[in-house]
């Protein structure tokens, strides 16, 4: 193991150490627990930056693989064993920085935000294990460990979402998140099974190498597509893609910094990361499905976000929408753009969440001061005019909103632009023009709803004067992370050219991976595609700035200048509004179908088990008794003399066993003689 990898290992283990320390001794540290966690993460960030720096200077990748389990047997003349290991390439290095940075900032932010929480140390411990699992996903070089950390991320998100588990909604949300993720993971797992069965290895190199030589599962391209899509299922779950996106908005029940960390910047991005990692083995068909999935997700989420009033819900749907964007980007083949959007989005979305956390924190304090426990601290309709009260928060928030809206000079503009160029190129090659149409539409919608939120929160008049007086700017530890993230939302961190990222360091280092699936590579040659993206770039830029501007303008017209009455609009389009407000009724649909079916089947089977399977057994016992007691109906007294002769014999035969024992010795004798006669008759 080379020294750099040892450092990478340290990066992985530091948060774990934080977790172990805090889970077992957390109580002892009292309110110092947060500082300990933050210290660990600070160190981690430094190491990650160091790794990033040294990584960027070299070619190739750092890899370390060892045999974890050797089955001591051969399959198809290949020794059967499971190799695992870790690796650091450019993608990993970038992700390391993203994860540790956001995590560190969230740790910092939480020092104030979570102050006085009853499970303060537990909170930091959970942050630790989350960071650990997330880093694990990034550092591993095989699907098995990927799956392992994948599940651990699920666990830690379960713990973090359910942090305030006394609230039914919180525990429901955490459960929902885990189970919905499990559904996706199931697909991921089946995909792994297919891969394992064909290649007997789970390392990325091993699998891609084998596919490169033309080996495909079950000699069928369909199966290869299926394998890719099944693995993509994992991403659908984690990255909240349609149709498994329903858990993410609910997950806002967790503390807001958690939302920033998990549900904006890192965990949900893991799905995108998975697609990026799996990219080489995805077939053209698989990519098509992925592109559509992303597009649909982006659109649905954006449409819902327009009508939400809860500040965190708006951000949640915006996250879903942006994730759809990334997935769409990868799906259309704009690999570098997708990954870049992941990174830029991580920064500004984490910023948005933290800023909203700052607002909520302030609102909470104000409401608390008023002893008002009914007003929703997260509802944008209860805010307004906070700009002057919370300047730091407002200005950073504005930068983030501009970034997400894709206004030039921001990082968001760069990455979004590249994705849109990619979709145009994609439609050029495949003729699926619906993808770019959705892309631009969503860009417009995003600008609209984000500014709607910004305006409702910070501008205009405050709804309640007294409350307004009690609102104060958040403390230093909360605003510093905001400022750091705001800085990162400008273009120059990614490319020196403010209008195009394609010649920046990011695109250089994050090159398009070699597609190993022969058929897919032939369908869309990489060079031609990159060429076409360049070609479409100007067009994309113009269009995207146009729709964003339109969106922003519309937001100002409606909510700031109030030239258009939002209420009137809402009333005229009541059904649509209700539909969107209820999130396209996805939850209801799932409750009515999948959940109801599950519970229904469970009830039926449980009943079946109790009544039928058990009943058959008990029935057999009952039958045995019946057989030996049927008698009473053929009581010997009933059949006295006058009864039909044959009926009498039938009765005698039917007289079952026990009631034959009448106590009358002569009956016994008759039966004995009948027995004797029957025995004789058998041989005649």
């Amino acid at each position: 193991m080379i020294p750099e990898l040892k450092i990478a290992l340290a990066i992985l283990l530091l948060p774990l150490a934080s977790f172990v320390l805090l889970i077992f001794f957390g109580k002892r540290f009292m309110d110092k627990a947060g500082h300990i966690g933050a210290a660990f993460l600070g160190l981690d960030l430094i190491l990650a930056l160091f790794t990033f720096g040294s990584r960027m200077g070299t070619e190739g990748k750092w890899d370390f693989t060892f045999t974890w389990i050797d089955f001591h047997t051969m399959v198809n003349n290949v020794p059967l064993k499971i190799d695992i290991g870790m690796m650091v390439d450019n993608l990993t290095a970038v992700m390391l920085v993203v994860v540790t940075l956001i995590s560190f900032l969230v740790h910092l932010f939480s020092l104030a935000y979570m102050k006085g929480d009853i499970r303060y140390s537990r909170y930091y411990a959970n942050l630790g294990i989350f960071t650990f699992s997330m880093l694990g996903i990034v550092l591993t070089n095989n699907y098995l460990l990927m799956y392992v950390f994948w599940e651990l991320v699920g666990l830690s998100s379960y713990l973090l979402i359910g942090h305030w588990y006394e609230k039914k909604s919180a525990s429901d949300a955490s459960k929902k998140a885990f189970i919905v993720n499990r559904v996706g993971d199931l697909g991921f797992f089946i995909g792994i099974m297919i891969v394992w069965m064909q290649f007997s290895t789970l390392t990325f190199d091993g699998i891609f190498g084998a596919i490169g030589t033309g080996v495909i599962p079950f000699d069928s391209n369909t199966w290869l597509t299926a394998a890719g899509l099944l693995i993509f299922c994992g991403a659908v779950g984690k990255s909240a893609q349609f149709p498994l996106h329903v858990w993410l908005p609910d997950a806002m029940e967790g503390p807001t910094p958690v939302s920033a960390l998990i549900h904006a910047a890192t965990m949900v991005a893991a799905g995108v990361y998975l697609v990026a990692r799996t990219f080489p083995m995805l077939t053209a068909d698989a990519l098509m499905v992925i592109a559509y999935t992303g597009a649909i997700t982006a659109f649905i989420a954006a449409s819902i976000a327009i009508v939400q009033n809860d500040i965190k819900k708006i951000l949640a749907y915006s996250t879903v929408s942006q994730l759809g964007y990334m997935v769409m980007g990868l799906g259309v083949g704009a690999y570098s753009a997708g990954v870049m959007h992941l990174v830029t989005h991580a920064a500004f979305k984490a910023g948005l969440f933290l800023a909203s956390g700052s607002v909520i924190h302030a609102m909470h304090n104000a409401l608390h001061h008023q002893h008002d426990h009914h007003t929703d601290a997260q509802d944008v309709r209860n805010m307004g005019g906070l700009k002057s009260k919370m300047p730091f928060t407002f200005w950073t928030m504005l930068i983030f909103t501009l970034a997400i809206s894709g206004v030039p000079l921001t990082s968001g503009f760069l990455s979004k632009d590249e994705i849109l160029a990619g979709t145009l190129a994609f439609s050029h090659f495949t003729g699926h023009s619906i993808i770019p149409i959705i892309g631009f539409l969503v860009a417009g919608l995003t600008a609209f709803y984000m500014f709607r939120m910004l305006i409702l929160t910070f501008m205009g008049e405050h709804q309640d004067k007294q409350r307004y007086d009690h609102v104060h700017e958040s403390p230093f530890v909360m605003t510093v992370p905001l400022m750091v993230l705001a800085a990162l939302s400008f273009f120059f961190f990614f490319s020196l050219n403010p209008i195009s990222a394609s010649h920046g360091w990011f695109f250089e280092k994050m090159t398009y991976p070699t597609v190993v699936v022969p058929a897919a590579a032939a369908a869309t040659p990489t060079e031609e595609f990159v060429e076409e993206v360049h070609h479409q770039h100007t067009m994309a830029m113009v269009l995207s700035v146009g729709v964003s501007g339109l969106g922003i303008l519309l937001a100002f017209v409606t909510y700031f200048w109030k030239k258009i009455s939002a209420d009137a609009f809402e009333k005229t389009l009541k059904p649509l509004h209700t539909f969107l407000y209820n999130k396209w009724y996805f939850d209801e649909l799932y409750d009515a179908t999948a959940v109801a079916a599950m519970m229904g089947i469970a009830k039926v089977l449980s009943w079946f088990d109790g009544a039928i399977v058990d009943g058959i057994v008990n029935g057999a016992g009952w039958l045995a008794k019946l057989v030996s007691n049927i008698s009473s109906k053929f009581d010997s007294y009933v059949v006295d003399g006058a009864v039909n002769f044959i009926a009498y014999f039938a009765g005698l035969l039917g007289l079952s066993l026990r009631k034959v024992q009448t106590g009358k010795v002569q009956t016994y004798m008759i039966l004995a003689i009948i027995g004797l006669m029957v025995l004789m008759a058998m041989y005649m």
Partner: protein
Amino acid sequence: MELKILNIGILTWLTFLPVLGMIIVLLLPKEQKSAIRWTSLGITLLQVVFASILFTKFDRTLAGVNNADTMQFKEVFNWINVHSTGWFGSIKIDYFLGIDGISMPMVFLTALISCVAVISSWSIEKSLKGYFALLLLLDTGMMGVFVALDFFLFYIFWEIMLLPMYFLIGVWGGPRREYAAIKFFLYTLLGSVLLLLAMLALYFSVTIIDPASGEKIHTFNMLAMMNPANYDAGSILSGIHTTWRYLAYVAIFIGFAIKVPIFPFHTWLPDAHVEAPTAISVILAGVLLKMGTYGLLRIGFPIFPDAAMHYLYPLAFLGFINIIYGAFCALAQKDFKKLIAYSSVSHMGIVILGIAAMNTQGMLGGMLQMFNHGTITAMLFLIVGVIYDRAHTRGVDEFGGLMNKMPKYSGIMIVAFFAAIGLPGLSGFISEAFSFLGAFQTFRWLTIASAFGIVLTAGYMLWTLQRVFLGTLPERWNDLTDINTREMIMLIPLGIIVLVLGLYPNLMLDVMNTSANTLVDFVRANAGVAVGN
């Protein structure tokens, strides 16, 4: 490899230590309650120590399975020797003990679970003496099953467990204990009589040369039964793919399936589990269920390779049904213990699916799952027991918010629950993953269908977790206390094993690997070999 203490083999010690303990317990006066408890604990602890010694001394490179030379810690004594009188020929039955990679983990598990069961029985007050005497007798029966290599001996041990179990459920159990106890008893007996018939048929089909006298004799030696060359031409079970061989395999299968329990034969399990006292549920789930699958591995597969291969798909299908069916049933339960009981059905289905794969990964996965399920389910039942001891109710919906009230308890509970869900890093994951990976190679669609079980498992486990531990605490549970040291002592070691095996499964896989490979190769190689011709 031999290991002797006081000139008596270690396997004999392991098996009969509890009998020794039982005698001591019976001799102690009824009033000496703590002496009885400590004696039982001492004996079972000693068993754990012996099992650990065995575990460390175990040679990982020897396969065993069908080869007597590579069986370890062998003990062979002639037990019954009726000289030839011309009719049966000589009847020779050996006291033949030995272990290989298939039985080693089970031996360790039995010792461990027995010890845990004794600790968890500490608060038993009713007829204490009888309780511990029966518990120790049960221990002997279980241990004997896993070390016996002579079919007759195996059968004796197999049946010895029935009666103590009947009493332990019937006397110390819940309100419907009588029903549950007799149901368990009848079911298991039904299975074992079928086993008996198959055993006798095997006895008459297999002939070996008696090394002592040089004459041809029938034998109950399991290893001899695995050798195709030992079958008499024209005997009942000679040939290949004959009706009799199928029937015998099915008889053996039903015998073991009832114990596992496999789908249509499982209905004794929820009743028995719900009514049994905690320690007995732990033993039932932890060890007894494993006997069924162990029997399949030790007897069903290697003795009837042709039938086993022929019925591989039905077996896997039953495994699939177990997984899904058990999970669904668990989902609908309101009784905490019944829920765990059904989860056992589901988890044992994974074992069945894994071993039905008949390849190394599946076999190892299944075998590891046997061990892991033993520890995880034991933890789950102990967890239910802890809460039942305090609240005297097991209704899942009656609780809530215990996480705050009982933090230590909840911590351990989270480990157990997530291990049962199959969370990576905990032992359940590895075995489930291997079982599925292996099964996928053999049964593609069935495995995909079965994999839905992992979603369902997460569903019912988390739902239970939410209902019991999250939310707000109902007022009537305000005076619940967190778990005490004794309960920690029984739960922590299991938790550690779950954790360690999750991170380093090689610890156990190493022990099983050689034997599992040999078993798979043996069955595959012999599936087409006609016996006795």
